[in-house]
């Protein structure tokens, strides 16, 4: 005779609950207690199951029931995601406010996608076709500029018995398989499992951001990974907004993971006001926000990065380019540490769990450019992951920063000192690096200019020389240097002020096309070469720097793209004639 044991709570310690008699697999989602709080199985020890709870556990008692949903923590993917604001486990925050008021009450739930909203579905497959995971069933025009492609969930396949166009909500079936299984506009996916792709591609195309220091000096590839450290007051928010605004990706996923409530409010109030430059529509129409502030439950914070990543992957599977920003991954790491210490696990470095590096690597590995699953149309999508780190005490040797740098290929070193000097974007050109420059060089040669990579290398060399000269200058003053080296300082300054600095609030300067970037840098190098020659012919540095063309070069950033070519010609001509005059 089978005895059915009822699962119940055995022990409660903060966000960690131990249940007995529960038949569950790892990472299964369970509901705990009378209030049915959401939790996730994170350890199994004989008949004891250890669960992390996504909500405040005060008031729970041993003996209260525990139920297994039988599935891992999953989120709903379908039309209605765009412009939504979710918490770490995909509860829609505006809806929660409407239902429960200004504070997040316990046990509150709301469907992630509005169940009553009807979408105009256009079927693109015919009845009787055999489809498999990732195939497009049809489309929904979700916002004015984003067409949501309705996919066959990965791992599903079959022959379509019935499918029709028309108005459907996410609850109503749009068709059925021969097997009788119903098809819907949305499907569920477990957040901790990467969505499959057909083939991962090498990152060979740059993500164009229109920011000169990023695109030219430290480019990130589509599908690449980058880390930004965010010390206090270094202008991190502006950079993130610029990336969201100008990157040539269609979808933006922003994860506010354990950050300040008021900062999140800033994002929530400013993003809807930002206009998409290409379409003029609000940027929110192609954005999904995940907001899990520092005082919201720690387990949901831990889950929030996975929730965001899964949404990003879902849009990638539709063939879109997605940029994912996680702010900040340090808070995520700390959430892991907190839960790990509740589990009394053996700690690794600084109390972080030993699996910290593995988790970070797993997360960043889900980024990438790939051929999407699906047989009826070849699509290429990408997820570019940009993670902010907040090293405690500004100490980069701490485990999260170190382990992040080990995986990410680009490092944009935001520097508070530069920000104080009003140098924006305040990315330090000496500390930053990009490992994609080599892989992308072919693309630059083919699409921009054959000597693009040499021009970049020359600029970097000058900046490098400047920094070593600066040390001497601080001691003896720049006048004490030989003329040749004074010239290097002059040119480096021109690169810094005329090229690296970029005004995010200037109408023209906010975005700079790659062609213009190249031409600007090339003009500076040309100036450098002419100046070099003039110097060799006996002209003094002060005479060279007094030339009119220098300030013209410095102001090229503010010339509109459409006038740029003619303006550049003028500047170049002026440069040549002026140098001819000084060198006699």
């Amino acid at each position, binding site marked *: 005779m089978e005895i059915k044991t009822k699962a119940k709570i*055995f*022990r*409660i*310690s*903060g966000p960690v609950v*131990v249940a007995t008699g529960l038949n569950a697999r790892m990472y299964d989602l369970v509901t705990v207690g009378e209030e049915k709080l959401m939790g996730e199985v994170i350890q199994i020890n004989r008949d004891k199951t250890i669960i992390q709870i996504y909500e*405040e*556990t*005060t*008031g*729970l*008692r*041993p*003996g*209260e029931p525990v139920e297994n949903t039988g599935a891992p923590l999953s989120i709903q993917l379908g039309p209605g995601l765009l412009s939504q*604001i979710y918490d770490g486990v995909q509860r829609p*925050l*505006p809806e929660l*406010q409407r239902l429960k*008021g*200004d*504070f*997040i009450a316990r046990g509150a739930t709301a469907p992630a996608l509005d169940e009553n909203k009807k979408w105009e579905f256009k079927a693109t497959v015919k009845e009787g076709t055999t489809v498999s995971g990732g195939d497009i069933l049809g489309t929904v025009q979700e916002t004015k500029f984003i067409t949501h492609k309705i996919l066959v969930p990965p791992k599903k396949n079959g022959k379509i018995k019935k499918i029709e166009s028309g108005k459907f909500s996410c609850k109503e079936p749009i068709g059925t398989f021969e097997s009788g299984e119903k098809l819907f506009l949305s499907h569920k996916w477990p957040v901790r499992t990467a969505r499959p792709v057909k083939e991962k591609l090498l990152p060979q195309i740059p993500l164009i951001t229109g920011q000169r220091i990023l695109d030219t000096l430290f480019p990130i590839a589509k599908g690449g990974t980058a880390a930004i450290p965010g010390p*206090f*007051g270094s202008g991190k928010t502006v950079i993130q907004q610029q990336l969201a605004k100008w990157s040539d990706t269609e979808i933006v996923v922003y994860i*506010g993971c*354990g950050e*300040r*409530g*008021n900062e*999140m*409010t*800033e994002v929530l*109030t400013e993003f809807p006001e930002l206009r998409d430059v290409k379409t003029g529509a609000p940027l929110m129409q192609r954005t999904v926000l995940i*907001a899990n*502030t*520092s*005082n*919201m439950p*720690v387990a949901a914070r831990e889950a929030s990065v996975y929730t965001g990543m899964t949404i990003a992957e879902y849009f990638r599977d539709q063939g879109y380019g997605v940029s994912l920003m996680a702010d900040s991954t340090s*808070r995520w790491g*700390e959430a892991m*540490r*907190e839960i*790990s*210490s*509740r589990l009394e696990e053996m*700690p690794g470095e*600084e*109390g972080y769990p030993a699996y910290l590096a593995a988790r970070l690597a797993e997360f960043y590995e889900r980024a990438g450019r790939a051929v999407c699953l699906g047989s009826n149309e070849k699509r290429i999508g990408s997820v570019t992951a940009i993670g902010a780190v*907040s090293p*405690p*005490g*500004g*100490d980069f040797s701490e485990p999260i920063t170190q382990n992040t740098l080990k995986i990410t290929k680009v490092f944009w070193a935001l520097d508070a000192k530069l920000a104080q000097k009003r140098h924006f974007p305040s990315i330090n050109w000496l500390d930053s690096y990009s490992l994609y420059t080599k892989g992308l060089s072919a693309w630059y040669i083919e699409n921009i200019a054959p000597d693009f990579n040499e021009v970049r290398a020359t600029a970097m060399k000058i900046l490098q020389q400047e920094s070593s000269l600066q040390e001497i*200058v601080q*001691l003896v*003053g*720049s*006048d004490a240097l030989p003329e040749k080296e004074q010239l290097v300082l002059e040119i480096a300054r021109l690169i810094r002020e005329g090229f690296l600095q970029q005004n995010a609030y200037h109408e023209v300067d906010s975005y700079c096309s790659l062609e213009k970037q190249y031409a600007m840098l090339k003009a500076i190098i040309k100036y450098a070469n002419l100046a070099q020659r003039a110097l060799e012919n006996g002209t003094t540095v002060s005479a060279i720097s007094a030339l009119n063309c220098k300030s013209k070069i410095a102001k090229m950033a503010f010339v509109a793209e459409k006038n740029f070519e003619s303006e550049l010609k003028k500047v170049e001509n002026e440069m040549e004639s002026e140098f001819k005059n000084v060198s006699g």
Partner: protein
Amino acid sequence: MREYKTISRVTGPLLFIEKTHPVAYGELVEINLGDSIKSGQVLDTSEETVIVQVFEGTAGIDRQSIVKFTGKTIKLNCSKEMMGRVLSGLGKPLDNGPEIIPDQQLDVNGQAINPFARAAPKDFLQTGISTIDEMNTLVKGQKLPIFSGFGLPHNEIALQIARQARVDGGFAVVFAAMGITNEEAQQFIMDFEQTGALKRTTIFLNLADDPAVERLVTPRMALTAAEYLAYTHQMNVLVILTDMTNYCEALRQIGAAREEVPGRRGYPGYMYTDLASIYERAGLIKGKTGSVTQIPILTMPGDDITHPIPDLTGYITEGQIVLSRELHRNGIYPPIDVLPSLSRLMNKGIGKEHTREDHRASSNQLYAAYAEGRSLRGLAAIVGEEALSERDQRFLAFAKEFETVFVQQGNKENRSIVETLNIGWKLLALLPQNELTRIDDSIIEKYSKELGLLFFKPKAKEEPEVEKIHVISQTTGSNSSEAQPQDNNKAKTEKQQSKNSEKKSKKQKIKKRK
């Protein structure tokens, strides 16, 4: 309500009780010692053992003590009557007044504000202290901590802010003291009484000899009271929490007693989350006129700003006000060092609509000029003030005046923002007008006319600006003085090196401590 006599173990502030009925996590517990009753809270509960942290300390508890589980969580009796009262760290009256008759009983842990329901803070809050109002402006709904050190007058500043804080629509103050001495507490109460501020203030007192565990509840009590006043009675509430360092020590103490795996410097790994659950209770809610603004005060152990307490605090709060021991030694009150201080929400609360159009630019200019003056001090110490160029001497003089005129003010001196801005302008006039590169010329024009400013005029001559040390080497001919600049350089590099090595040794120290 069931009672038990099954205490199996007592360690530090913790009780282990066996064979109970299912006890709720976070439940309030009473422990009857026969002659007195102590209270506590459930920290960990299972079918076998319940762990209780005792607020009043475990002295006197034995295995015969009777433990009663109340079935309730910790709640605070809230009503408007709280104003003008002095309560204990657990919310019991300390002023011989009557118990508070509750209008609402609220869970002290509160709930997280839905990020979507938050409104962005942007209303200027005047503290009457120049260094805060002009340089590190506080806005309604912000959390701006004061980073202090032992022996610095942070409590005096806190009291001054509590007395002087003004915002449109009136103000209430909730003052939570954690682990302060009896003497300090009496001074606080006296000050509040004398200045008449007490009637709009609620004070929660947890003294140094009160049990450490009680400290964990005190700030939550205070914030619950603040939220009640803000969101039920639409008041603007300023919460002052002093001293958060004592709070964190208590947190560490409990962690150690529970034999938890410690994080940095022995503080528990969840300290960030725990602190966030306090600091994040500041803010504004859309559609509500009340607000909660927080000024937590903490003393940095060893004046070390990278210590976990200030560090984690800085990551949650929106900026920090840093006190300087050097200014304090020079007799300057309030000894606020504006250079490392920061208010992240400042830009939202200043300018034409909030304070005055010149606020942003002139505060930037003051900051830049003071920073320059301060960095010149090091140099002046080596080469002597006379050796500096006239321009540099002006900056040195400016930095000095800035400290003695702008930073320095009486602890009863309540400056309006207009007064503060005008003092700033008078100081800027010590500099040549062309040095004010961060202010628009039209604004300089306007205010120099309005305030009758006469900007410093450099004596005619001066070669175009040259690196200063270079000037010396050019103007001095003799061998002996030619050696001087080199020595300077040497001294400078040596200084730098020693600084570096200092840093290094500090780092090593930190490592060793770990």
